[in-house]
C-alpha cells in the first residue's frame, strides 16, 4: 500500500522517543517537523540526530549526500501553528492523559481535516486520548519501541471510534517508513507492556519471596528462554521509579494483582535505589563509569 502521507510532525521531538521517531520519518523520505515546547530539548535532540547520522555514515549505512538530504528534511519548531502542514502528527509528549488530550484538542483546531493524529502512548487508552480531539475517527495508536530509530516494531491500535481508513493509512505509513506494524486492540499496555510489566513484577516478587537472588533469577531467565537481559537487569536499566509509574498506570485500570507494584519495589524506590541511574538497584553500579563505556 502506498502512503498518501508526505509530511509528518512529531510532538515531543525533543524527548527520547520523539527524537527517534523523527529520525525514522525523515530517513524514510518524509518531510518531518520536530515540535516541542522546550527549545533546549529540541536543540539537544538535533545534535543527537546529527551524531546518529554521522555514525551511520561512518559505518557505511548511509552515504554522506543521503545524510545531508535526511537532515534537510528535518525542521524544528516550538510553534504549534507550524503543524498545519502535517498529514500525520505523531505525539510522543509526556505520558499524561491531560497533557496528551490538551495537545490533541489544540491540534484539532490547527491541522486540516484529513490530518491523522497518532499517539505513542505506552499505557494510556487511545480512545481516551482521542476524545476531545474533535476527530476521534482520525486518531490511532502507533507505539514505537525504544530506541525508535533502531527498532522496527510498531504496535498499531485503533481506538473505539477510529475509522478503517485511518487505520489503513497509518498502517501504510508504518510500512512506507520501513517499520513492521502489528495490530493490537486498545487495551492497557497493548501487547508488549501488557506482557512485560506484570512479568517484571513477578520477578521482583520472586526475589522478595526469597526464591532466589536477583543474579540467579536473571541467569535462569536468560539461559532458559534466550532473553538478552534478565528482568531485574532490565528494571535496573529502565529505572525502578519508572516501573512504579507503569504499575500505577496499569493496576487501577486492570485490577490485575500482577500489575500492582510489589512492596519491595516501592521500598527500594523510597530508599533511593532507582537502578543504574542512581548507582544501585537490584545490582550495584560503578557510577563513575558511563553506561556502555
Amino acid at each position, binding site marked *: 500500500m502506498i502512503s498518501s502521507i508526505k509530511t509528518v510532525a512529531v510532538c515531543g521531538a525533543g524527548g527520547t522517543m520523539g527524537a527517534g521517531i523523527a529520525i525514522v520519518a525523515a530517513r524514510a523520505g518524509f518531510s518531518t517537523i520536530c515540535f516541542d515546547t522546550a527549545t533546549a530539548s529540541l536543540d539537544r535532540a538535533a545534535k543527537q540526530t546529527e551524531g546518529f547520522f554521522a555514525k551511520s555514515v561512518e559505518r557505511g549505512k548511509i552515504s554522506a549526500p543521503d545524510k545531508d538530504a535526511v537532515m534537510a528534511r528535518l525542521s524544528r519548531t516550538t510553534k504549534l501553528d507550524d503543524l498545519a502542514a502535517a498529514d500525520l502528527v505523531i505525539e510522543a509528549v509526556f505520558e499524561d492523559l491531560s497533557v496528551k488530550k490538551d495537545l490533541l484538542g489544540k491540534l484539532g483546531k490547527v491541522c486540516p481535516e484529513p490530518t491523522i493524529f497518532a499517539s505513542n502512548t505506552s499505557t494510556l487508552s487511545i480512545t481516551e486520548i482521542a476524545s476531545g480531539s474533535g476527530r476521534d475517527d482520525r486518531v490511532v495508536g502507533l507505539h514505537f519501541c525504544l530506541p525508535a530509530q533502531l527498532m522496527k516494531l510498531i504496535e498499531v491500535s485503533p481506538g473505539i471510534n477510529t475509522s478503517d481508513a485511518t487505520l489503513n493509512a497509518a498502517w501504510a505509513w508504518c510500512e512506507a517508513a520501513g517499520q513492521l506494524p502489528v495490530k493490537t486492540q486498545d487495551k492497557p499496555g497493548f501487547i*508488549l507492556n*501488557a506482557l512485560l510489566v506484570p512479568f517484571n513484577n513477578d*520477578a521482583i516478587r520472586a526475589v522478595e519471596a526469597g526464591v532466589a537472588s536477583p543474579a540467579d533469577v536473571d541467569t535462569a531467565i536468560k539461559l532458559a528462554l534466550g532473553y538478552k537481559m534478565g528482568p531485574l537487569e532490565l528494571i535496573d536499566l529502565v529505572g525502578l521509579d519508572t516501573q512504579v509509574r507503569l504499575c500505577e498506570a496499569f493496576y487501577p485500570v486492570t485490577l490485575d494483582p*500482577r500489575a500492582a507494584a510489589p512492596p519491595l519495589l516501592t521500598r527500594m524506590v523510597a530508599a533511593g535505589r532507582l537502578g543504574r541511574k542512581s548507582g544501585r538497584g537490584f545490582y550495584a553500579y560503578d557510577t563513575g563509569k558511563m553506561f556502555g563505556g
Partner: protein
Amino acid sequence: MGYSIVANGESRSFPNGDAFLAGTTDKADVVIYLGAELVADDSKAAILVELGTESLGRHTGEASGEEGSNVLGFARYRNGSDAPSKLVELVRQPRTKDSAIAAAKAVLEAAGLTVVVCADQAGRIIDRLVRPKYNAALRFLDEGLATAKDMDLTCRLGLGYADGPIERVERGGLAHHHDVTKALFDVFATPAYAPARRAIVAKQREKKT
C-alpha cells in the same frame, strides 16, 4: 569429585544418550537420583533428586522451616521435546549444608551446566515466572488482543526474545502447561496460575485420545 546415578526410567533433565549419563564414577561423593526413590546417605557430599512439579520436601520430609541436609532437588530446564538447556535449577532447603550445595554445583558445572540456586518453592524460578506470562498470552489470544503470530512477533522484535509466548508454550505442550499451572495453582490459588482455557482444552483432548 565424581557422581553416580540411580535411575528409574528416562529422565527429562538427562534423556537417554545425554553425555552426563556416561560421566559417572565408581567411588562417587555425589549421588544423583533420576526418577528413583531417594535413599538417604549422610556419608555423601551431596545427593540430588530430580524434581518435577513437586517440592523437594516431598522426598525429604519437612520440619517447620528447619529442614535441610545433604539432599538437594534439581531440574534442568527443557521446553517440551526441545533439547535440554544448560540451565539447572538447584533446589535447597533452609538448613541445606553449604558443602552440599558446593559439591552439587561442582559436578554439574564440570559437566558444562550453569547452576542457579533457588528455594524449595512451587515453580522454582522458571515456572513461577513464565507460566503466568503464558497464561496471560493465552487469555489475550481468547480476548482478541492480537493474533498469536503478532504476539510472538512483538516479543521477538520488541523485546529481543528468542521466541514468543504462544509458540513457546505450544511447543512445550499445552497439556503439560496445564499440569504445571495446576500444580502451581494448588499452592498459590491466584488467578495468574489457574490453567488457561486453551491448556484445559488440550488436557481434556489428551485424556480423550
